[in-house]
């Protein structure tokens, strides 16, 4: 397995990242040792509830952490090709935010935000907004930029492109606006596309279309995509590789089948169980008890332990390491320790997964 991994191009590797925020009520340790790899052409999804640190992780990559945030330690190595095609690598943690913004943001690494209405400028036509990064980063002339803009609009599936080019964001529907945001993100041919909850603000009917669009473009341009979401339905649709985050750490990661069909961490069990199902007659939803961990307090042991019905005594004392459970599957739970008592996933979830596996495609 490890040999196979090395043959793939590693685009981004995050190692032992720690980020804290200084707030009026104390220091919040939002990210506590995240380790993650992104390979060329692959899609990785980071899943977790709000406050689990998934957005903060990608903001650190983009160099757009808010003013009170600080990267305490760790590295984010980005391997890229410069204008001449040479292989280069840079540690984004050591670079200043200004340097990242000048060299990578929008050019090599692009981001699609959650709400298309707030990420577009209401006073500029959408054509101008798509042209802007190309003129800035690729030094294209206005005419060249306009031609490419029209191509981009067509690529993201917008009709009547000549008319749309001159329109303002408020004249478009939510789905159309998100398409424009995607066009802006892709205009400079980035190597990495980060999608921060790209469909949460959209209707389910539009959601599917936007996800299909991003996937389509990814295949055409062979780019790597990072999805951030709390919707496991979205994850199931797009991801190759999944990382589940809780309270600033990755508690479980693996490829999509390992996470959905053989989850090992109690938090992942809870997440999967709480997804609403269509083809069931049960009328009650499973809910993970309690509320998310408060990172203002120092976490002792496993942060999920207070909400975890399967918690062992050691969970309250010592933080579990990341156990290798075969394949690409890594789990941060004492339950995977060889000496731990055997603990299977809840019976309802087992039945549900068996039912999912039986389904014909």
């Amino acid at each position, binding site marked *: 397995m490890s040999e196979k991994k090395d043959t793939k191009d590693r685009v981004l590797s995050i190692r032992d990242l720690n980020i804290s925020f200084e707030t009026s009520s104390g220091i919040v340790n939002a990210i506590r040792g995240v380790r993650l790899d992104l390979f060329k052409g692959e899609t990785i999804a980071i899943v977790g509830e709000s406050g689990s640190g998934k957005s903060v992780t990608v903001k650190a990559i983009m160099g757009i952490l808010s003013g009170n945030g600080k990267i305490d330690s760790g590295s984010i190595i980005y391997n890229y090709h410069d204008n001449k095609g040479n292989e280069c690598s840079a540690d984004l943690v050591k670079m200043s935010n200004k340097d990242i913004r000048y060299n990578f943001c929008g050019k090599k690494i692009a981001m699609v935000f959650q709400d298309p209405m707030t990420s577009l400028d209401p006073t500029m036509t959408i054509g101008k907004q798509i042209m802007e990064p190309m003129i800035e980063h690729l030094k294209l002339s206005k005419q060249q930029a306009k031609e490419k803009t029209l191509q981009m609009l067509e690529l993201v599936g917008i009709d009547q492109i000549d008319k749309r080019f001159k329109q303002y964001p408020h004249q478009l529907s939510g789905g159309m606006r998100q398409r424009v945001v995607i066009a802006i993100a892709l205009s400079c041919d980035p190597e990495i596309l980060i999608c921060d909850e790209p469909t949460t603000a959209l*209707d*389910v009917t539009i959601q599917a279309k936007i996800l299909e669009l991003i996937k389509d473009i990814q295949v055409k341009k062979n780019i790597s995509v990072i999805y951030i979401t709390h919707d496991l339905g979205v994850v199931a649709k797009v991801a190759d590789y999944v990382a589940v985050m809780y309270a600033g750490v990755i508690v479980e990661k693996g490829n999509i089948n390992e996470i959905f069909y053989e989850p090992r961490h109690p938090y992942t069990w809870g997440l999967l169980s709480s*997804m609403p199902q269509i083809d069931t007659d049960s009328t009650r939803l499973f809910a993970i008890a309690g509320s998310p961990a408060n990172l203002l307090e120092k976490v002792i042991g496993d942060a999920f332990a207070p909400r975890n019905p399967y918690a062992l005594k050691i969970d309250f004392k010592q933080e579990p390491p990341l156990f290798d459970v075969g394949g690409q599957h890594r789990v941060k739970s004492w339950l995977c320790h060889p000496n731990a008592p055997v603990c299977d996933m809840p019976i309802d979830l087992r039945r549900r997964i068996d039912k999912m596996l039986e389904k014909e495609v």
Partner: protein
Amino acid sequence: MSERLPLLEVVDLKQHFKITKKYTTKAVDGVSFKIYSGETYGLVGESGSGKSTTGRSIIRLYQPTSGTVIFDGVDISKKLNGEQESNLRKNMQMIFQDPMACLNPRKKVSEIIAQGLRINKICKDEKEVMEKVGNILEKVGLSKEHATRFPHQFSGGQRQRIGIARALVMNPKLVIADEAISALDVSIQAQVINLMKDIQQELGTTYLFIAHDLSMVKYISDRIGVMHLGHIVETGTTDEIFKNPIHPYTKSLLSAIPHPNPKVEKGRIAITYDKKAMGVDYTLGINHQVSDTHFVLATQEEYVNWK
């Protein structure tokens, strides 16, 4: 079923907004439905379909253009006298979408929840007010100590619980929940849905549940109405809508629900519904009865084709 008296009856409700002299948005264009006591009616549809406007017209946040709303035997769509008005305010309450925006940040939780009690002079003295506030907080899974805090000290899920407590403290007959869970995390959504169900069982509250997420609506609703562009295109019990959808819009909505199963989801392609291309005009359709409780808005020809 037919012998039961509906708690709320909406007949041909229209809500038009005049944008310019020539242009009027028909947000709700002739909607009729009934909600019986103790049940949950789910209103689903995409954004802009008029589901929130319907809810707001019912609770008199808007003055309806035409149509009648009968609540508990009283027509509440026209001008009301003081007694009817206060009666309505006591018995119909609303839970809003954004728990961050709907709570006054300058007021303590106890003041927010007690406001309705004080205005309507329901309690004899201050002691009774605080007792009621404490009880309702415990019912929604918070504790009495939370009453002295301010909204910003709570997480999103807890704030939504405060919103629910504020609506329920009046002991209303009907609660309109307008996208009450869409701003919350998946694991918290489940908690809030379960809480609302528990309260319904205990107090017999009736809900009008407005949402765009069909998979969540399934868990709480007894009957569902599917709205599109100001019309209810299909209505029926939850089972009928999910197992035997007839209108193509309902089918497209159902097909768009993501499945948390990579095997199925990777290959799933949502059914698209293009009203114009199919030549459907909602104003021409009439309600066709499929079964006792299942209705579809369609012309005779469409109905035969779709079925």
